[in-house]
């Protein structure tokens, strides 16, 4: 079975999605402050890696990476509501790109599966 990553067109789909997704995150006061100190180029690269994983594409994400990568944000108050915002914007991004609701639900399920790692619990 082909993954959504392949169905959407591989890394070209990631390139199309990443700006839409990251712009939504930066424009949202509920989560924008987590990006205050980050370098945009580095952040875009990280978001691409995240989207690749969420789309079921090839990735090397491990639970340990996700825990360590977000621990400083958990200390700054990152919690379930913020993960919900990410999943919300992920869905809206895919809708803008014309992806069907079934596949959006698949992506949300993948993103949800790493929730505990991201929140370090």
């Amino acid at each position, binding site marked *: 079975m082909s993954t959504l990553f392949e169905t959407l067109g591989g*890394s070209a789909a*990631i*390139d199309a999605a*990443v*700006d839409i997704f*990251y*712009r939504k995150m*930066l*424009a949202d006061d509920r989560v924008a402050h987590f990006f205050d100190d980050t*370098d*945009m*180029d580095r952040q*875009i*690269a*990280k978001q*691409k*890696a995240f989207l*690749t994983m969420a789309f079921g*594409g*090839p*990735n*090397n994400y491990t639970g340990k990476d996700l825990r360590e990568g977000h621990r400083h944000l958990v200390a700054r108050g990152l919690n379930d509501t913020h993960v919900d915002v990410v999943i919300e914007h992920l869905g809206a991004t895919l809708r803008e790109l014309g992806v069907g609701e079934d596949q959006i639900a698949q992506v949300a399920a993948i993103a949800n599966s790493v929730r505990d790692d991201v929140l370090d619990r």
Partner: protein
Amino acid sequence: MSVVRFQDCEVELRPDETVLSGLERAGRKIPNSCRAGVCQSCLLQAVEGEPPAQSQRGLKPALALQGYFLACQCKPQGDLAVALPSSVIPSYSTKVLERECAADDVVVLRLSVPSEFACRPGQYVHLEIDGLVRSYSVASLPERDGHIELHVRRVPGGRVSNWLHDAAEVGTECILRGPLGSCFYVPDEAREFPILLAGTSTGLAPLIGVARDALAQGHRGPLTLLHGARERAGLYFAEELRKLADTYDNFHYLQLAHEDGEAGNIEAALKQHFRKHEAGKTRVFLCGAPDLVKRMKTQVFLLGAASSNIHSDPFVMAPPAIAA
């Protein structure tokens, strides 16, 4: 079979093996993460040989032109010699041909172009003086103009900038290394995309370099240069820039002095720009104080510029000398 050379090792790649896997098999550590051509953390530079197009997908064109490629996507047809980014910085000796006091705190130096030296305006070079190294952006087209133009702002307590202001004379020799950076003009077929250049103080140097280069290459789209400074007196090169605007209908120059209040607000000017020009097609070049560059980057991105079209060169200051 392709042979890959890296530092002191040579690896013969196996069929279908990537440069990344081959080098790892040889015990070399190459930074990497996604291994899917997405995160770009395994960026290497080909110093000999051509990396395949597949391994340059998604890179900014300025990087691809310089032979950068993604090791995890690279299955070369022929042999390659590769290096980690920025580990290949050739060094040259140069001398001061001309110096011009452009503002109270800015001196413009024009250096001789060493043979074999080539760079794109907007890239930067290291100047080495008494073992101290500082980076300056190239504002001229060295091949056309016959000199390398650098803009040096006097940094209070700065050892190199003060030396360049006070001690460097016509004929003074120094060591130059480079070029580095990917902040430069890359034309496409039509050359009609809008270009937005924004920076403060000597952040003007790479911006004027990009503008001169684009105009020399016949760019037809609108170029807008926003130059900001704390005070009007800091807006050096105004005459030269006005002349450029008179010569080229598509070149627009705006002065933004902080002392002018709202009229000098660079962020308001950025917003204004995107009311006139389509953000999604605009290539943006930003340069100057790191905090401001970061804010402008986020701002133009939120205004609709594509992340892949935003080029920036924050000036990072060396720590000041400790006063004796």
